[in-house]
């Protein structure tokens, strides 16, 4: 039997954006109060319906995926990738359109879904397997393979709360990897775990598609994993299909036209109205910015200095506010962190701080910035905003680049322009003897 295993036609998903986004949940109290208010309003003759904004997470999406193909879904955050996977995994229902799926689908939207920290590794394998749709007999049959793949033999009867995060991820992936569905839906799970294990997972997934004729649908921000694993790719933009085709071509186009560069992120701090700036009653983060040559820039030349600007509002007098930035590359590797430990005392008001980064620090990559505004007391973390800024780093034709005149791939996650001292002549004890030969 051939033909597409996944056939999507006009798939759409609409979400309603509530007018009051600060309230995450509907409260019965508000519904009752609202109904009473509405009733009174109707009595008094003053009509007026509350308007809601709609938001289409997916709009009229159509594509087909043939059997035995590994297909990547690429796109920015909010392009609808996760929504698509959730619909195909039947976690949410589409608003319109249809999807036809031939075969058993297993979705791996998060590693270790349903793991319970109190239970042992052995117990969690059974639980997790059942949640993912495996029969008890099936799990028992694959049990040894799962354990061997995860490399946790010695800790099988230890509660997983005592596991290291690496072991935890390995075990969780292993259960899913042996699920043997016809269609495997994977969302960004490879962003965790150490490099060796990531490689092992990629190998396993490649094996699954090539040898066993299974279909893999793979969402990732890791473009090298995408090109390594998938032959085809789907590019989503704003909930719509931008392009379908050869993975290498799609990835190149996506990086060139759609890759996320966020040189500035700001939050409103109006005198009245909703105050959504992250933080607490002491300090709120208002903005983060990336500067080069005194201009906002999402593309940074690694051979020139740059600055990260942090703007914040202090609400009541504070002592020793620690501002910091953590830089992460596209593989999720933390490059470095820099905090400002200087003692300080700040009264209420608006402030700006700048972190200066000299030339020749970053390698060519995509760098994400976490901004933190915290205090010494570990219990009171004020602001910790991960990945709010993103910039591309490019190597330019500088006077003396770290890579010299070499144009190929240069190793290292950083490209520090550390000074080499000139060669100095040192005494050679054997020199006179050699001179006589």
């Amino acid at each position: 039997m051939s033909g597409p295993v996944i056939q999507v036609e006009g798939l759409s998903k609409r979400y309603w954006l509530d007018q009051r986004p600060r309230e995450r949940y509907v409260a019965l109290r508000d519904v009752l109060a609202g109904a009473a208010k509405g009733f009174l309003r109707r009595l008094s003759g003053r009509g007026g319906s509350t308007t809601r904004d709609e938001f289409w997470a997916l709009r009229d999406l159509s594509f087909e995926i043939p059997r035995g193909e590994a297909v990547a879904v690429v796109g920015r955050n909010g392009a609808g990738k996760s929504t698509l996977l959730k619909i195909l995994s039947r976690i949410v229902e589409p608003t319109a359109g249809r999807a036809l799926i031939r075969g058993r689908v297993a979705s791996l939207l998060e590693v270790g879904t349903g793991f319970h920290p109190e239970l042992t590794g052995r117990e969690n394998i059974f639980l997790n397997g059942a949640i993912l749709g495996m029969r008890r007999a099936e799990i028992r049959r694959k049990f040894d393979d799962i354990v061997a793949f995860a490399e946790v033999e010695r800790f099988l009867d230890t509660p997983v709360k005592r596991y290291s995060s690496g072991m935890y991820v390995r075990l969780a992936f292993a259960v899913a990897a042996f699920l043997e569905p016809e269609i495997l839906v994977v969302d960004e799970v490879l962003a965790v775990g150490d490099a060796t294990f990531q490689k092992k997972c990629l190998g396993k997934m490649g094996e699954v598609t090539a040898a066993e004729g299974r279909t893999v649908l793979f969402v990732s921000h890791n473009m090298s994993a995408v090109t390594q694993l998938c032959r085809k790719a789907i590019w989503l933009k704003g909930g719509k299909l931008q392009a379908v085709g050869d993975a290498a071509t799609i990835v190149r186009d996506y990086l060139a036209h759609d890759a996320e560069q966020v040189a500035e992120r700001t939050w409103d701090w109006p005198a009245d109205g909703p105050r959504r700036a992250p933080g607490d009653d002491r300090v709120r983060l208002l903005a983060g910015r990336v500067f080069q040559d005194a201009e906002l820039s999402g593309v940074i030349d690694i051979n020139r200095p740059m600055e990260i600007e942090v703007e914040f509002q202090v609400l009541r007098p504070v002592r020793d506010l620690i501002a910091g930035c953590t830089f992460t590359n596209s593989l999720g590797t933390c490059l470095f962190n820099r905090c400002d430990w200087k003692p300080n005392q700040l009264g209420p008001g608006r402030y700006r701080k700048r972190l200066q980064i000299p030339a020749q620090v970053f390698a060519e990559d995509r760098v994400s910035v976490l901004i933190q505004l915290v205090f010494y007391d570990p219990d009171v973390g004020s602001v910790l905003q991960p990945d709010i800024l993103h910039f591309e780093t490019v190597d330019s034709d500088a006077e003396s680049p770290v890579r010299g005149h070499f144009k190929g791939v240069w190793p290292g996650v950083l490209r520090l322009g550390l000074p080499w001292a000139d060669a100095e002549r040192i005494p050679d004890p054997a020199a006179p003897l050699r001179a006589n030969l």
Partner: protein
Amino acid sequence: MLEPELVIEAGRTERQYWRDLWRYRELFYFLAWRDILVRYKQAAIGIAWAVLRPLMMMVVFTLVSRRLKLPEGGVAYPVLICAAILPWQFFASAVTEAGNSLVENANLLTKVYFPRVIVPGSAVIVSLVDFLISTVLLAGVMAWFHVWPTWRIVALPLFLALAFAAAAGLGLWFAALNAKYRDFRYALPFLIQLGLYASPVLYLSSLTPENWRLFYAINPMVGVIDGFRWSVGAVDFHWPTFLVSCASAALLLFSGVQNFRRMERGLADLL
């Protein structure tokens, strides 16, 4: 090779639902097993807790009712109370656990698909296991007061099934409401408390005025508790109340499932 063909469409899931429920039947067992395992791993006194709780309630209630000089109905008062407390405790904990189950498992529900009714369903099963353990208490109390079981005890599972249906029905209602309205969980313990007084746990249902008795039996726990008491030989059987309770439990279960199914489709968007 025959492969299942699945169509995902707005409002389409109904047809595959019951088939899926069968396919995922083992998950009922696994989720219940997880909750029981975790609970008894964490509690220091472990399994004794299931017996200790109704025992304490029984002692308190017996002392209180001695003071109130409630009629006993021919059998030692502790037996009477015990036969009521056990099913009540099952019902109350099943409804509470099922009611909170969706919100507690939100992480699971937004990440992986399976028929959602399994989550509150297995919460009820956990309470059932507790109940089965606590029947030790009933046997103990009956032996202590020399109340020997007759053939009537055979009917006990029937009344348990009635309690199960009522608890599952109400549990599904509460689970759905709880997922939709997050402040509902504050009302839940209060409603359960109210239910305790609306059920004949502390007193005998025959105390209600005769012309109100059928109306009173709309509370399915009236039928359950009367049934339990009848099974241990404490009261006479009253068919009309039993039938009303059965009908009401069936209605509760049916409407609970219907409402839950309706809510379920948008569940992942709610949590």
